[in-house]
């Protein structure tokens, strides 16, 4: 069941490469939040403990409700709904994304062979690596600042999957602290976005090149 969810997660990543609209980005974030929470629950289904429920609930709350809701609020305030239509659609992004996902699976498979004694389960680990790489690619390729924040959150989701992929089970307090951190970070980025809007109307990262030598 976990593999199904992680494969779905990789599909959302590939879909990411196709769209440029911000609203679909938020949709993908919500979807990924649900998938990740599901994977978290399933991973520890056998030795059930209240802490897992709390963590899963926290993940669901933060990743699927709070953050996406906050981002849509930002989009509405700064009317950036259109996304960067300026760019014609270019297949290069899709090819790179596909290459990343495939590469992640191959790498994860090789690693599991290389270190048998740490028996990492291949698919979630591969999905995690793909998530991180995809988030990075999104940040580098897209010019919109908000797109870069979304890329950041996708890396965050990939990271969470990585934690599950190698079954390193963190004490729940740290998990929640991490989530709280993530929310505060997004919150701060939101405030910064409002201020940025006043100085940089376009909201594009190419405008932010004042500080160079």
């Amino acid at each position, binding site marked *: 069941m976990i593999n199904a969810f992680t494969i779905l997660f990789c599909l959302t990543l590939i879909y990411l490469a196709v769209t440029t609209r911000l609203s679909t980005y938020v949709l993908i974030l919500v979807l990924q939040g649900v998938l990740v929470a599901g994977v978290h629950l399933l991973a520890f289904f056998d030795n059930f403990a209240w802490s897992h429920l709390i963590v899963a609930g926290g993940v669901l709350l933060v990743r699927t409700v709070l953050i996406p809701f906050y981002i849509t609020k930002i989009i509405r305030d700064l009317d950036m709904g259109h996304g960067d239509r300026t760019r014609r659609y270019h297949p290069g992004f899709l090819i790179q994304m596909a290459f990343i996902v495939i590469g992640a699976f191959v790498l994860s498979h090789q690693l599991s062979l290389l270190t048998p004694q740490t028996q990492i389960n291949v698919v979630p680990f591969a999905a995690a690596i793909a998530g991180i790489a995809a988030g*990075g690619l999104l*940040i*580098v*390729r897209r*010019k919109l600042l908000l797109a*870069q924040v979304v890329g950041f959150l996708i890396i965050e989701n990939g990271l969470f999957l990585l934690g599950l992929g190698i079954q390193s089970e963190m004490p729940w307090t740290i998990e929640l602290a991490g989530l709280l951190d993530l929310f505060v970070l997004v919150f701060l980025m939101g405030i910064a976005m409002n201020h940025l809007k006043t100085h940089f109307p376009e909201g594009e990262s190419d405008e932010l*090149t004042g500080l*160079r030598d």
Partner: protein
Amino acid sequence: MIWFFVISLLLEALSFVMPAFVRESRRLNVAVNLLNATALLLGLTFSLSGLLVYQYVEYQIELPAAGPVVIGFDGLSLFFLFTFQLLSFAASLYAIGYLRDYIERGFSVRAHLSFFTLLIVAMQLVAILHNALAFLIAWEAMAVAAYFSIVFDQDREDVRRGGFWYFVATHASALLLFVCFLTLHEKTGSWNFNDFASYTGYDTQTLAIVLLTGMIGFGIKAGFMPFHAWLPNAHSAAPTHVSALLSAINIKAGIYGMARLMMILPALSAAYGWGLLAVSLVSAVLGVWYALAQHDIKRLLAYHSVENIGIIGLGLSVAWLGRCYALPELVVLGFAGALLHTLNHAIFKGLLFFGAGNVYQRAHSGNVENMGGFARVLPLTSATFLVGAISICGLPPFNGFASEFLVYKSFFRTADLLHGYAPLAMLVSAVGLAFMGGLAVACFTKLYGIVFLGVNRSGIAPQPQSEPASSNIPLLGLAGLCALLGIFPQIGLRLASPALNELANSAQAPVGWASPLAQLQIVFALFLALVAICYGLKRWWQSKAGVRVHETWGCGYARITFRMQYTASSFAEELVNLGRPMLAVGMKWKPISTILPTAEAFHSHCHDRMENGWLAFHGVIGRVLALFRWIQSGNIRHYVLYMFAALFFYLLCALVWN
């Protein structure tokens, strides 16, 4: 006797702090310099008595960072201490008169005086500290103090540039010395020179590293040819009393370092000796050739320092060969020539710079082209400058000759004792030394003739002005010393003998090696007597035959003007053209194009090929570094890309390296 030295250091510390209390510049100038002079006088009595009745004395101060700091007064340290103190004493006295002119023009001398005192103290410390780390600390303190003393007239751009070049050069030499002393420290585990000397486990690789970094580090400071580019700019930028200190004794710190390295380290291979010989010869000949082409007095004298450093280097290289081939007589001769020439050069270079300072204050510019006829205005300066000029060319009655005589003698003795190509090399270096002597004669006849003799070339005769007493004492004192050490070279040797005994325990060298110097004394006495008698006879005969003064005979041409005299560039033009490949003379003038030409101007400047080389190298570094300015592109997406790239690179290293 050590108390004399301690008191002198304390007095100098007091004069270092004094500018904070005394506000008014004129009184401050006199107070600080007089205090320095008295302190140095005390120091001189200590070092002189230390040299004459010699007994090795060592003191230890415990410093956790550098282990036991040894302050040793061995022969070499005392000799250099004596030289440093002597010239600092003269420079402090001279500074009183020189700075008075600047104070009237509204310069604040408070910071300058404290840095000047710090420079004097730091140089003395460099000579006596026998602990490598403490030596490096004193070395950098000397560099900083010298930098701020040079950059006194800050408003001029070339002064700032010259000062900065000096600072960069000394910092580079400090870094090299870092590596040299640290490798020694790493091997022997202690910072003190005598531990370095007593350690026997040096392998050739460490010795090679130590020698290379040490020699190049001290070579940069001494101003040997490829690294001399900073010297002319710094010395012409500094005010005269500082450039006198720099040229006379500051570069000698490099020579002291080399001599100390030679004492500490076992003789590795003769290649270093031959290398040093070649570099010194090139520095000597090219140094004086560049000097010939200069128009600014201080730059000319600075290039001459490079020449004299070359001569000292010749002495050192012979000493190094002596050590390699285990011929103590050569070591003694080489070091005697080097040390004596260090002392002599310090004296007459200081004298020349003080003379140049007096002329500079009257002419308000260093350019020799529009000078002339200063002998009538500055009689004492011109007489002492003449003595300095004769001794710097190494001409007989004065002290330059005694040390060059020793260097020649060491050449011929090396030619006797070593076989194979050594005699030929020695003959070539003797001829080089002679050739350089000829160039020096040409250079200083040009300088003295153009500046002091004839009629002023700018048309305005300089108005006679009284020479301040405080600057007369150093002039007369140093000129007297030139004569004294020239006619009685034994005195110089007597001062150097403690150092020579240690360097090569000269007891083994045949006793007679110093005998020709004794005979020189008698020969000079005879010569001076002959000159005096002939001069007396001539004056007596002329008074009988009649003497009259009349216009210069211009082969019948009636209206001779001051512009018909030979100028500095015309005097040296032919010789400078001979050195065409090394001496690039740039000329800027417009050919006469119109029938009725308006005012024409001709400007020629001899630029130093190696200095241009260093400037080009500086430009190349700038361009190479500019290639990488794209890193800080301002675009956040590039920064994220750098992060992923670094990650990928490190992961690659992990795969490759395990």
